[in-house]
């Protein structure tokens, strides 16, 4: 009887040992050495100008000569930028005619850019608009942005420091246009022209 009890105890002991060993294997975890992979994300600078409304302006009137006439609708301009750190120092928005002497041309002549005027009547954003009163397109722009004698600088903005508000922002402007033909006789005909609006970062 005693020997049976001893064998039973031995069996129980082996069974417990087996369970313990099995449990140990189940929970054991072998880790390989960590292998690094370098991750890079390159987000390039962006700069865009879009005309939200007023991209096409048409004046139809029998009496444009010798007076000043507003174009029918304002031009809504949205300028957006996102510059990499320390990549630019200034930003400008310039409106200009490529050929100032023939800004708006027709079969019987042309209207020079000096006869076209603009003003910024509304502005939202970090830049301060420059032509807050009616101004002709007779300037030279900013650096390479614009054409001599046919430009109007709408605003400039200094991109200083690396703060998010400076490097990534947007500016919305409303630009009014008018034709100033006082002392100017415009022959009958259809005249067309293109006003270029360009943002440039330097």
């Amino acid at each position: 009887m005693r020997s049976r009890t001893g064998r039973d105890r031995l069996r129980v002991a082996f069974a417990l040992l087996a369970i313990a060993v099995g449990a140990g294997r189940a929970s054991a975890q072998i880790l390989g050495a960590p292998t690094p992979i370098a991750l890079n994300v390159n987000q390039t600078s962006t700069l865009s100008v879009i005309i939200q409304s007023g991209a096409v302006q048409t004046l139809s009137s029998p009496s444009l000569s010798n007076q000043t006439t507003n174009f029918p609708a304002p031009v809504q301009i949205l300028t957006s930028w996102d510059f990499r750190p320390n990549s630019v120092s200034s930003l400008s928005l310039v409106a200009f005619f490529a050929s100032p002497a023939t800004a708006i041309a027709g079969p019987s002549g042309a209207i020079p850019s000096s006869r076209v005027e603009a003003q910024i009547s509304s502005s939202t954003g970090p830049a301060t608009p420059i032509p807050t009163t009616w101004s002709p397109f007779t300037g030279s722009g900013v650096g390479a942005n614009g054409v001599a004698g046919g430009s109007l600088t709408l605003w400039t903005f200094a991109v200083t420091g690396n703060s998010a508000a400076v490097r990534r922002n947007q500016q919305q402007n409303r630009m009014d246009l008018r034709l100033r033909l006082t002392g100017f006789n415009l022959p009958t005909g259809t005249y067309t022209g293109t006003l270029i609006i360009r943002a440039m970062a330097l």
Partner: protein
Amino acid sequence: MKSLRTLAATAALTLIAGAASAQTASTSVALTVNQAAVLSIVPSVGTATATNPASNAITPFSGVNITTTWNQAVTATTALQIVGYFGSANALSGTSGNILTSNVRAQLNAAVTAASPNFTTTVAGFPNAAELLAPQSITATPNSQRTDALNLALDYSSVASPMAGTYTGTLNLVAVVQ
């Protein structure tokens, strides 16, 4: 004469017998081979790059293949798992800010989708991790290797893209046998 031949033959036999038993020496060399357990991951390239990730989109990093090699003592339940993890909740960082681990997703051998795991859980004790390969039995293949395409991507499905700049980070891969 006959007895002389007999003597000579006897002498010859004696000499042969003497040569066969005269000089023997032997020693032994103990040979032991220890095959250490092997468990490693080797990537095909050391760097993966994503360029201009856009808002409301998933932008892949350049491709990486990973080769996992193992040589393990196994039981009936031994399994291999592959885990990727970052050192913090900021997966990548730069002068323009950080990219969170929640915006980085991974998928083995298939394109990353919005359903692919991102690195926001704890796996095998590693926080900011994603399980890249669920435990696979290696009971039948204790000494083997596998190569997988590790696809990584930035998920900006619901967030703005990061500011312009360069962001860098390190993804750690680890093989786990249990």
